[in-house]
């Protein structure tokens, strides 16, 4: 069964078609259509219960590359992994990468993904120079930020609903080596985090923090963690060989391996890991994509799956709001394996439904525990809504239509660009 990464919901599709050439007519319209890349989003943004999925993994061809300018055009099913393998040895890098490189270009555009360098480089869509969009009526639109700004703003972050993204032209950034200079440091509380962040973000294009959301800091409040910063290195270290470890979770354990005991232990151990306050050389793979070294890591939650909860809070509410969210999580005792806190830069994403915007974002994950989990989510929702924040559609399986509409006020304007034959579980759910 085709699912998204967290394996909730499990839904049946009427048809699944693998596309293997661009310009191919889309299948007939007895069911709504939706493109599916590598299924690394969460929830039902890439699912289309009762409808058709158009698998794009075979649309993975390069089309053109200019080695002088670093501008690349490829089919939308090409993965960031493929693109990095191609670009890095040639001295170029993908300008914005999410926490996994196993996503397609089309998925990165459709969710207007962000990375640890958001405060420096903005979201993925800001680096897209052109794309082609196949509509169900057979039309192929050439979409560019200047030539067709409305279609561009609808399609970037448009959750695959404006049609099939067939090709993407992306501006890469130059790098000298595959290596980064990276440092990390513990902090005791969120106050310390904000201070650290204000100092670090000017100098370090990549920053991120992990929060221990189970064990309080020395002053008794939740919010201790590890802050890391990095930049692309200008020279490679003397020992410049790097081999990514290839581990995998081979099968579904009968019950989730993530429970109160293992969570507390994991958070404790993670906090105790060695930190490196002075910058040192780290290969980009483990720094940018630590979880990619463990294939199928989603299996640790067992067959039932898990939830991600990622929100953004606007600047005026970020400090109190983040503390309130963490306190609510701690009080629930449900904890999260990896709580990631990151301050976004001052610009909103280019899409009508772009998630990145000024403020701070927190990502949490929780094993599926039925009512107990939903109860916690409702409490978190209230904090987000009161703060004027939003949830990330790419990681959502359950937000209410009200929360979606308040978080994405341009949704009605966006709706007029949705292809009449395209839809998704997410879209039907939030526009009910």
């Amino acid at each position, binding site marked *: 069964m085709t699912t998204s990464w967290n394996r909730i919901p499990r839904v049946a599709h009427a048809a699944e078609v*693998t596309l*293997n*050439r*661009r310009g191919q007519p889309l299948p007939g319209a007895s069911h709504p259509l939706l493109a599916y890349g590598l299924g690394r989003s969460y929830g039902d943004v890439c699912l289309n219960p009762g409808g058709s999925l158009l698998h794009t993994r*075979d649309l993975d*061809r*390069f*089309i*053109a*590359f200019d*080695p002088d300018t670093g501008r*690349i055009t490829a089919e939308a099913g090409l993965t960031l992994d493929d693109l990095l393998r*191609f670009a890095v040895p040639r001295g170029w890098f993908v300008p914005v990468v999410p926490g996994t490189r196993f996503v397609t270009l089309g998925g990165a555009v459709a969710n207007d993904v962000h990375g640890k360098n958001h405060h420096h480089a903005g979201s993925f869509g800001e680096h897209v120079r052109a794309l082609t969009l196949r509509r169900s009526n057979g039309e192929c639109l050439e979409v560019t930020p200047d030539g067709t700004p409305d279609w561009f703003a609808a399609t970037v972050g448009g959750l695959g609903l404006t049609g099939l993204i067939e090709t993407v032209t992306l501006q890469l950034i130059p790098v000298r080596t595959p290596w980064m200079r990276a440092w990390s440091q513990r902090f005791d509380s969120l106050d310390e985090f904000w201070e650290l962040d204000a100092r670090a973000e000017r100098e370090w294009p990549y920053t991120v923090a992990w929060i221990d959301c189970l064990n309080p800091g020395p002053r008794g409040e939740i919010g201790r963690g590890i802050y890391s910063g990095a930049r692309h290195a200008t020279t490679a270290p003397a020992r410049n060989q790097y081999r990514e470890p290839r581990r995998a979770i081979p099968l579904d354990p009968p019950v989730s391996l993530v429970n109160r005991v293992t969570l507390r232990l994991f958070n404790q151990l993670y906090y105790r890991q060695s930190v490196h306050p002075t910058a040192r050389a780290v290969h980009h793979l483990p720094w940018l994509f630590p979880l990619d070294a463990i294939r199928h890591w989603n299996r640790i939650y067992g067959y039932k799956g898990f939830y991600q909860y990622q929100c953004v809070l606007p600047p005026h509410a970020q400090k109190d709001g983040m503390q309130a969210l963490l306190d609510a999580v701690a009080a629930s005792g449900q904890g999260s394996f990896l709580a990631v806190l990151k301050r976004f830069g001052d610009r909103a994403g280019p899409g009508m439904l772009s998630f990145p915007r000024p403020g701070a974002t927190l990502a949490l994950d929780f094993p599926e525990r039925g009512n107990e989990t939903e109860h916690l989510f409702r409490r978190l929702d209230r904090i987000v809504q009161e703060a004027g924040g939003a949830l990330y559609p790419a990681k959502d399986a359950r937000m209410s239509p009200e929360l979606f509409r308040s978080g994405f006020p341009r949704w009605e304007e966006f709706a007029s660009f949705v292809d009449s034959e395209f839809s998704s579980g997410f879209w039907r759910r939030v526009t009910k």
Partner: protein
Amino acid sequence: MNRLQSVVILGATSAIATAVARELAEHGARLFLIARDGERLETLLQDLRVRGDDASGTRILGTTADLADIDAHADVWAQAQEALGNNIDAVLLAWGTLPDQEACNASVATTLEAIHVNGTSGIAFLARIAPDFEQRGRGVIAAIGSVAGDRGRQSNYVYGTAKGMLATYLQGLRNRLFFSGVDVVTIKPGFVRTPMTEGFNRAGALWAEPETVARGIVKAMRRGSDVAYLPWIWWGIMTVIRLIPEYLFKRLKL
């Protein structure tokens, strides 16, 4: 170790052949590709030229031909030799179809057509190019067979017959060309997630990605292996399957 610096790939738009071509292009090889569908060939050439840093399109070339048409072989081979400057290191035969066994059961013509596409036409091409390799006294000839050729099963034996015939031909050719220093490699992939097998239930550990199989093919061609089961686990599986006595095997529903 064989050089794979100039390689001809026939049936190049198949998923496995495409993955092989990418692997070789990324290592800077000169390629000549043959495929039936001109539009798909063109998009593949474009992709390979980016991967192989051949913006001018001088090292990575191709032509369209229906390789089931034996009359086209002479011209295709002449074009390949010309494009690669009469200095071909390796040839990979990768064209074929997966016939519907039920349809074959219902039609003699369909059966013979499937055997032609997957077996005889390949043999015809091999017979044509063998003297050139023999004369030059070096190089690799590789062809994609199948584990299905190792034993006839009711669900897939027309395909199996063609691939088995191809394998036996390659065996003889290997023996003949050994004395001129030419390696003949029989590739036997197991289950691979390609458009050819779409519609099968492809979950499970035995299904491999085309990229994995392609890496194995390139390695086998470099080494000049005789027979390469890909992934290697299929060597074990097929050994067991071949050992089942026929009076038992005929009762199985495989």
